[in-house]
């Protein structure tokens, strides 16, 4: 090995164009990907400029970027002064933090529960059933839930009345106060099983002798979970935590859209739905680009705040 490196050092390197020509095939393949992301990822980033330019209703992006007059932060001001601003910001942050708080740890617990099943067949059964809703769309699942919540023919209202939670029939979809709860519960029903799959895979790859040794040492089930299972899958947990944190404030549009209606708008309008309505249907391109950028800035502020907070409390940051 050493001799070889010594020899290559002595031999003059061929020039860069020559080396590139020699590997033109893989360069071509790699450049296909680069061209793709330049068009579909970097060009839109470049297009953010129109947030500071007066380019509403103008479809030609290049022309907007180059020719439209600068307006500074006036679109940001317009959004902050919008009568819906407080509700939208509150819903976007609240719904996403709530999802992070509940829907992130839930699959981990669920995976542990499944891994504690002794009977193999039952385990398979539970997995097959709970993974299934992941494969149907939010539109379909939402449509199902809407039918179940119907006051006349649904099944949820009678159950809630029998259990004494409500005294008279209510249209749950028309109640703004119920919207967040609806989002959390439906995303648990639809996503819990599939969300647990990765943690379950991590748990099954844990060395079983660790558990045996712990049992001999007298550790009960909960101590085994606490001292073996959780530490063994902490790497996976951290990776997925980072992934969901990097998606902070990107609401699941489909999920919210299917349940949103004029009656619950107060608690269901989030930045993503607002951008769709204003941008795509009303063509206010500059304004909504500014709103989108505002969202990214808020997410960044939240991330930094969370990082500092966790450093203060737990002694280590998010990153």
């Amino acid at each position: 090995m050493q001799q070889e490196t010594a020899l290559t050092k002595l031999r003059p390197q061929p020039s860069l164009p020559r080396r590139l020509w020699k590997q033109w095939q893989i360069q071509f393949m790699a450049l296909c990907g680069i061209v793709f992301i330049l068009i579909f990822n970097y060009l839109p980033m470049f297009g953010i400029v129109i947030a500071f330019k007066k380019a509403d209703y103008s479809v030609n992006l290049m022309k907007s970027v180059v020719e439209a007059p600068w307006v500074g932060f006036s679109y940001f001001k317009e959004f902050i002064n919008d009568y819906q601003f407080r509700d939208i910001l509150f819903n976007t942050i609240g719904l996403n933090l709530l999802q992070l708080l509940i829907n992130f740890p839930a699959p981990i617990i669920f995976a542990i529960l499944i891994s504690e099943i002794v009977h193999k067949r039952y385990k398979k059964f539970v997995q097959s059933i709970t993974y299934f809703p992941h494969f149907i769309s939010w539109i379909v699942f939402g449509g199902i839930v809407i039918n179940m919540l119907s006051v006349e023919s649904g099944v949820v209202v009678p159950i809630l009345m029998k259990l004494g939670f409500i005294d008279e029939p209510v249209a749950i979809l028309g109640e703004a106060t119920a919207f967040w709860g609806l989002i959390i519960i439906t995303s648990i029903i639809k996503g819990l099983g599939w969300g647990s799959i990765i943690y379950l895979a991590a748990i099954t790859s844990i060395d079983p002798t660790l558990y045996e040794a712990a049992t001999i040492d007298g550790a009960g089930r909960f101590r085994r979970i606490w001292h073996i299972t959780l530490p063994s899958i902490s790497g996976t947990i951290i990776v997925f935590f980072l992934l969901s944190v990097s998606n902070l404030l990107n609401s699941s549009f489909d999920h919210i859209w299917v349940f949103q209606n004029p009656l619950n708008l107060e608690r269901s309008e989030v930045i993503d739905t607002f951008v769709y309505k204003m941008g795509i249907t009303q063509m206010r391109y500059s304004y909504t680009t500014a709103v989108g950028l505002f969202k990214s800035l808020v997410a960044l502020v939240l991330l930094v705040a969370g990082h500092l907070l966790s450093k203060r409390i737990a002694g280590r940051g998010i990153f």
Partner: protein
Amino acid sequence: MVTKRFDWFIVLNYTFLALFCVITIYPIYFVLIGSFNEGSDYMRGGVFLFPREFSLANYGVVLQDERLYVGLKVSILRTVIGTLTSILFTAMVSYAMSRKNLIWRSPYYWLHLITLFFGGGLIPYFLVLKNLALINSFWVYIIPSMFSVFNMIIFNSFFREIPEELHESATVDGANEFRIFLSMFIPLSVPVLATVGLWNAVYHWNSFFDAMIFTTKRDLMPLQLLLMKMIREADVISNSQYIPPQVQRKISVQTIRMAAIMVSTVPILCVYPFLQRYFVTGFMVGSLKG
């Protein structure tokens, strides 16, 4: 590990999981029985376990809606073409990125990674597609989702596990890079390709957002967008459809919706059992090691 002693935890755990299974599967059952119930009778409420007034009228109406067949065609086409092109294209880029001798590999990699954390947002993206004349074209379903950085990274960690000697021996035998990629790396990575392909197919079959914002033409409306219109706008019957009066009594907005939901779910139910073995393999290779 199985203890003979009566174990409360196991009993509680099994009961809880059984309950959760009921909660996940009952909604689908609820829609199934509703779709087979007569419309006006259904609206009286109380159809929870079995159809009360059995009727096929809802399916009759849904299956006569010509929008359904357009939707099915668009959905199937985009799922098949979209998944195949995305897997092939992403794997090809990934193959090049996994070659250690690739010049500028690290800057390329950084360019990819940055896109995972920063983006332009919906509106600039929309305008880019508009300027590329992709709006209102079938290709808007295929081209923008042809490449995924995330999947590229997953493939990459798989390709790197393939021994270098295989590549060398193929080169000695005179195969070029395209040949090696297609007839050696693709067959060797079928498990991970199948898993990622499955995610891709699910994405294509279920997505309606791109159809909603990027298309306005009726003949480009995929199944999910049609369902969205039926569910959110109660637009359940197409304008050109004639419904005889004796059928009209047997249907309702709700029951037709349920029939439409079932029609779109049945294809998934049919393939679901066969797909289960592909759920995990890709995860194991991709996410845990990468």
